[in-house]
């Protein structure tokens, strides 16, 4: 008998082991303020990763979110520098992300182009366009902008709440709302979905648009954490998000996986680097270990599916 959510639980187990090791060997890891800062820094990643999970469940991929993230951040920064109210800045950033996502979605779902190449192209275009426009210049934000004008820890808690709320709402919607199941159906078999009366193209388009909106929100959540906006931010975000999804059991072949697994996967990935420091392993190993974890996760899948005759 196959254990349900085997993959998700094994990630949780590894995470618990890692945290256990830290608790014994480096209890300082769990100190309040550094922990809070760490989590707040990764809250935008979680938001973006939730979006990418939608796209991957639809059997698509988006590697342009790092560039989208930077573009939305700059957008938000410029709006904020123009002394517009916080709400407008927020809406602006999300709107920017939504339109970028819609462009990808239109090219992929509308024209039926392969998502990997489309988003490769848009990644380069947004990134280089931004560099050309900003020439690497940072944007200085007004004083009252950082941490939403709250104290640092209140701001950090706000970010955690936003990310947690989004995760919970989305995870519940994916499981308990009909529309959530559409994404799974389309990713599992687009033709069968069409015959069941679901519109695969519209669903795919929606996934890209939502990813864009989430990326815009993530960018906003990143911007409020520092007094300046770095136009180069978000480099490698797509890999981190995809890695979290893959490690957390969201199958790249579509139709499988859930956001809780993704959450566990992301926690595991973001714990490694600080854990290395606390466990006195050289931190340069982070990327290599991240790669090894991705490979281990897919190898485990491969071995399991080989053993199961279908």
């Amino acid at each position, binding site marked *: 008998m196959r254990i349900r959510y085997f993959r998700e639980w094994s990630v949780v187990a590894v995470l618990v082991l890692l945290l256990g090791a830290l608790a014994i060997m480096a209890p300082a890891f769990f100190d309040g303020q550094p922990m809070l800062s760490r989590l707040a820094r990764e809250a935008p990643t979680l938001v973006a990763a939730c979006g990418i999970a939608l796209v991957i469940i639809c059997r698509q991929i988006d590697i342009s979110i790092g560039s989208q993230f930077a573009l939305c951040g700059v957008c938000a920064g410029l709006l904020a520098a123009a002394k517009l109210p916080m709400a407008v800045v927020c809406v602006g950033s999300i709107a920017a992300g939504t339109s970028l996502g819609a462009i990808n979605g239109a090219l992929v779902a509308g024209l039926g182009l392969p998502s990997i190449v489309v988003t490769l192209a848009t990644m380069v275009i947004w990134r280089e366009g931004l560099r050309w426009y900003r020439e690497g210049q940072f944007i200085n934000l007004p004083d009252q902008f950082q941490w939403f004008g709250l104290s640092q820890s209140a701001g950090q808690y706000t970010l955690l709440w936003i990310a947690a709320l989004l995760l919970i709402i989305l995870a519940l919607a994916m499981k308990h709302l009909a529309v959530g199941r559409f994404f799974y159906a389309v990713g599992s078999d687009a033709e*069968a979905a069409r015959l*069941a009366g679901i519109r695969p193209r519209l669903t795919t388009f929606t996934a890209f648009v939502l990813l864009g909106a989430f990326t815009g929100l993530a960018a906003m959540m990143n911007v409020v954490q520092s007094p300046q906006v770095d136009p180069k931010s978000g480099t490698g975000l797509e890999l981190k998000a995809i890695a979290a999804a893959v490690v957390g059991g969201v199958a790249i072949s579509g139709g499988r996986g859930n956001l809780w697994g993704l959450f566990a996967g992301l926690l595991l990935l973001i714990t490694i680097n600080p854990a290395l420091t606390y466990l006195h392993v050289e931190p340069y190993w982070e990327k290599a270990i991240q790669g090894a974890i991705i490979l281990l996760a897919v190898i485990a899948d491969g071995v399991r599916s080989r053993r199961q005759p279908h």
Partner: protein
Amino acid sequence: MQPPLLQLSNVTKSFGAVRALKGVSFTLHQGEVHALLGENGAGKSTLIKLIAGAHERDGGRIEIAGNPIGHLTPRQARAHGIACIYQQPTLFPDLTVAENIALGLETPSIGRRVHWKKRRQHAEMLLKRVGAMIDPESEVRSLSMPEQQLVEIAKALGAGARILIMDEPTASLTQSEVALLLNVVRDLRGQGVGIIYISHRLEEIFAMADRVTVLRDGESVGTHAVTAITQAALIRMMVGREVSAIYPPSENEPGAPVVSLANLTCGASGIFEVNLEIREGEVVGLAGLVGAGRTELARVLFGITPADSGTISLSGKFVEVRSPRSAVEQGIAYVPEDRRRHGVILEMPIAANMTMAIHPVFFPGAWLRLDAERRLALEYIRELGIKAAGPEAPGGSLSGGNQQKVALARWLATNPKLLILDEPTQGVDIGAKAEIHKIIRHLAKNGLAVLMISSDLPEILGMSDRIAVMRGGRIAAMLGGGASADEVMSAALGHEKEAA
């Protein structure tokens, strides 16, 4: 009198240059089981896909209960009370059984809540009605083919359809499952549902249907009440000619055994203890129902799913076939059933397709000899009478029959000892079919051992020197070339012929 439940007038449908339906009319009344018969490629599947909204018709009228229907999408078809069970289950492999059933029934509206418990209970109830012992929480990808078929049937049941289309629903079911299903169908008919029933099993049609329509080459040959027609007449309508007249006769005496299989078993593909001998110059027909293990046996012989135990010997020598590559090296050739996916690479030129299995021999040092390849292709084009623009024409530009000849040429080029043909004339027009039969006969005459899988009973009877009938992954009977259709059918069905 109230209008018929469903009325199709003169509907047409083309795929590219292929005219799948050339103006078919068809009516279905309430509380009627209307059987649809026809050889493979006659247009049955296209017709039901039009009704279910999966394809859009090119022309003609569709009326449901007297109301003309314009554009028909799958969603609208469902709203009109049309449910369809396809031959190939259209299920979501990654989702659970309960969800699969639910997605087929619930109207796809975005904001509605998913009631998992209700879905589960509903699925349980429906599965019980079709007599399936399946856990609604299991993933569809873990189910066997017949189990998936039962899920499809449960789904269609749950839809509360007014018009139910069943495309060979019993093809892969066991006897008891079939009996249960037929009861369900009778129940539905009693409730006033109109049922379009496609099956190759004539006895099912006679047991259950009220009327039968025969399609041939995209046209309706006629509609009759089942009580007013005989099996022989039906077969004649399907085939369009007297069966015995069209097959080239066997001319030669079989020689020494080329292949013998002893206790060949492959658990994963459901093949058990197959013993079979094929002699030089002999055509052995492999008959049986869909799901009896014929294609699976061919796949074992060709090394796609290697055998667990038992032996294969070729010309008296034991051989091990672990992969298609080694099968080719041993002299086994397999022309697969799914021509478009496995038989021919549609995008590649027919010359490249023909040399694909002989790379190491024909191109020493891996170096392409394009002129030699072209000559070889031209030779086969002439020899087999392939209608193509030239050796450079892509496989996909050819008609089904000509594609099949290209697939055949690929394997003849390997100079095999054993040629396995899997449904060699499926979806091939009548003219090409006769030509392929002539080719097979010719090959046998030159000493090739041929194993021919076919669901086309007249073909099996007309072409085979001997007939092996499979059932449940085993050879159920070996019959002589002069066997009757009834003998083959009863062996395939596994029960003694009822007194007719």
